[in-house]
């Protein structure tokens, strides 16, 4: 954007949202990777968002929607970013009827704020993405952002029942509705959830909720060998037990979570009726005995707190790079070992979180140096993992990396034969490519 154009855009944005709600220049804190947006705008209503997009569409300015901003660097490097569009002022809970077990919120409403209102009704949204303490519900939906609770509760994608979206040209549409079961027309919720702000701006999200469990506890099993912990995980998965989360954690990560126990561990979180939590902890104890695994039990607040810490792990440990592998559940341990081997030399304080029930493996750490040699060896490692695991339906996504690495590798990897359909969808919903251009798969 030229200076003169930026002046004009600023004036027009001020006319829409008021002077106090436009920032120019964008402060350093709003940089995405190494790119600084020209302006940041804070609309308060979907009408204002529609007006901002009409303006951007007419002038072909790149708009990047943001919630809390915690996931802005998830994706390929943006080609352009003229306007950063924050939903920070759109925080209302629009409808919440506990007897329906559904709710409708503005995109900027945070997960924590919503759950604070729902908990007295013994209901909640069972999401625990990284930095859940800051996450907005619009952001969670746009990224389909999940954490360990995916094991027991599924992904946010499975809980979104309706959306209001402002399209690239400023037209507003609704998808789905407010009921929990709905096959009326095409399910456009699925199109927008997980689209990373590249098809439209989510302004309102409707969710189905879950009953909040009566009790909770976490059992930690420790050992020095993955194989024995894996066998514990497999036995749990094949038993009648119903953990809400199941996680293999390496020594480095455990040292941050529970400093007295810096060993490989398997964590099983039980969220259930009180008698069922007691029952499952007893079963877990018996399992630990039969496999000669060491065991620690955490109840209530202590249990909650270790999982909250786990969601902040990348803040507790230096994390320049974070990969997500998705493999068949039976391959989880094999994949985490392969990831560890591939990155061992380039990452210090390498930490691993792996879900043996879903096959999701996260590997993070601190780059040992910023030298060319290190960077190219990280890129080699990513390519190597992708090649190895493609044959087993595995995927490797770069969730977080410095721009120097993103310049050398597509963070999403290969899409396959469905890429033409995705391109066509992008073109159908954002023909001028003004929404988060370049961020998504294949640089869409």
């Amino acid at each position, binding site marked *: 954007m030229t200076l003169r154009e930026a002046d004009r855009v600023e004036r027009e944005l001020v006319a829409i949202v008021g002077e106090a709600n436009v920032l120019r220049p964008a402060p350093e804190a709003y940089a995405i990777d190494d790119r600084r947006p020209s302006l940041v705008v804070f609309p308060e209503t979907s009408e204002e968002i529609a007006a901002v997009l009409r303006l951007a569409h007419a002038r072909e300015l790149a708009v990047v929607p943001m919630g809390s901003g915690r996931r802005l660097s998830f994706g390929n490097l943006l080609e352009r970013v003229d306007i950063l569009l924050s939903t920070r002022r759109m925080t209302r809970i629009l409808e919440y009827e506990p*007897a*329906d*077990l559904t709710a409708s919120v503005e995109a900027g409403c945070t997960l924590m704020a919503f759950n604070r209102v729902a908990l007295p009704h*013994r*209901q909640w949204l069972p999401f625990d993405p990284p930095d859940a303490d800051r996450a907005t519900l619009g952001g969670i939906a746009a990224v*389909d952002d999940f954490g360990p609770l995916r094991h027991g509760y599924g992904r946010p*994608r*499975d809980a979104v029942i309706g959306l209001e979206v402002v399209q690239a040209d400023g037209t507003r*549409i*609704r*998808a789905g*509705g*407010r*009921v*929990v*079961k*709905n*096959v*009326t*027309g*095409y*399910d*456009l*919720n*699925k*199109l927008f*959830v*997980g*689209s990373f702000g590249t*098809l439209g701006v989510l302004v309102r999200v409707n969710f189905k909720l*879950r*009953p*909040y469990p009566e009790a909770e506890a976490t059992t930690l099993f420790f050992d020095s060998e993955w194989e024995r912990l894996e066998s514990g995980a497999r036995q749990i998965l*094949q038993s*009648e*037990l*119903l953990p809400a989360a199941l996680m293999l954690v390496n020594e480095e990560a455990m040292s941050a979570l529970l400093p007295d126990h810096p060993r490989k561990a398997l964590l099983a979180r039980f969220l259930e*009726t009180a*008698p*069922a939590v*007691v*029952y*499952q902890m007893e079963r877990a104890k018996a399992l630990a005995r039969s496999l000669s695994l060491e065991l620690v039990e955490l109840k209530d607040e202590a249990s909650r707190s270790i999982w909250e810490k786990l969601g902040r792990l990348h803040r507790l440990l230096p994390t320049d790079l974070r990969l997500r592998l*998705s493999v*068949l*559940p039976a391959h989880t341990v094999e994949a985490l070992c392969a990831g560890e081997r591939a990155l061992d030399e380039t990452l210090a304080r390498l930490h691993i979180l792996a879900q043996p029930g879903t096959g*999701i493996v996260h590997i993070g750490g601190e780059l040992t140096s910023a030298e060319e040699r290190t960077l190219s060896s990280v890129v080699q490692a990513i390519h190597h993992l992708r090649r190895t695991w493609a044959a087993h*339906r595995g*995927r490797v996504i770069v969730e977080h990396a410095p721009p120097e690495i993103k310049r050398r590798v597509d963070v999403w*990897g290969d*899409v*396959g*034969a*469905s890429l033409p*359909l*995705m391109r066509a*969808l992008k073109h*159908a*919903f954002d023909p001028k490519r003004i929404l988060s251009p370049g961020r998504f*798969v294949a640089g869409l």
Partner: protein
Amino acid sequence: MASWIAELQEIVGKEDVLTDPERLLAYECDGLSLHKHPPAAVVFPESAEEVVGIVKVLWRHRVPFLARGAGTGLSGGAVAVDGGVILELARMNRILEIDYANRLAVVEPGVINLMLTRAVADAGYFYAPDPSSQMACTLGGNVAENAGGPHCLKYGMTVHHILGLDVVLPNGEVVTLGGHGTDAVGYDLLGLFIGSEGTFGIVTKITVRLTRRPQAVKTLLADFLSIEDASRAVSAIIAAGILPSALEMMDRATIEAVEASVYAAGLPTDAAAVLLIELDGLAVSVEYEAERVVELCRANGARQVIVARDETERARLWAGRKGAFGALGRINPDLMVQDAVIPRSKLPEVLPEVYRIAARYGLRMANVFHAGDGNLHPNICFDGRDSDEVRRVKEACREIMELCVRVGGTLTGEHGIGLDKIAYMSLVFTDDDLEAMARVRAVFDPEGLCNPGKVLPMRRCRAF
């Protein structure tokens, strides 16, 4: 004979291309007899390669086509409206792979829903979505409709249990949607495709999630002297934080029909409504929650709550529920199995109004439905030969739809739009909403050849 018929015969053989008008009659409607349109031909492919071949021929000749499974759909979705060709996939019925370690199975689209659950039962697994037609309906049809069933209250719809699809696009190209057990990257084409009612392409391979059978199951039957009490009990159970695996309601007309049929389950014929409530999970939880459910039912006016003592009793109760449509169909020439969804807290307000609408049009109605989801199935009994009655059925249905939409509900929870509900789409969606849907459809099917005339209304000579 059209030249494309000869080309199809070359692919599948002469016997497997039906063109004889009398034999085509079997394909003129699906489970909803209101809409009758005979196809130009029916083809029986036996492999994905044959499907690709057939689709390429029809694409080249610009002949519309659609896939069909068991034809049990209830929205007129599996009929060829404008002289199209039906690809009958019933012969593609192999279970290709069962992988317990990764809790998945790979199947062809013609596999019958219940057959899959039977195939994995001994190992302690099941396939969760269980539409009432599960003894007949195919998994390919379930994918097309995003089928539900009584147990989706806890376990979710078909879309929550499909891990990957191989799809033949309308131009004959083959794509894989979803990761078949891992997370695919990019837009969620898998989720978008499921429930697209056969308008985005034809599925040739499905990877489904297998679910571990719970440790314990308990089935309760509560009977009520008023529908409102039963509705309030439903709300009370949900509000108490209990998520039953199923929470079904049957009204008196349904109970009477069931008890007079082979599905007789010993239901109290003097009750205004019964709730069939199923809890599953860990034995200790199920015991604990069952006690609370009994209390909540009693507190909301239940006359009696009985707990099925064993698997035989449980199976008998479910046979009564799942046979309800058959029992109703048996005593009436035609049956309109309606489908609509409302926020569940609106049940006490909406149900009496639904009965009033039927009464106003002089129609006999029986309600049997997924109360826990707020998913209504008002079943209207009629005689399709009586044109005045057919008109009244249609008008009553429109009023019921308008009522459900007015209270925040929607047109269909599991049967789909098909042909039957196109006219109501604008009750729920704006022109802009529909136009966005039309854009998605055009991405998958730019020529409008794949199951045309379904889901979206036509405006200005194009579907939207």
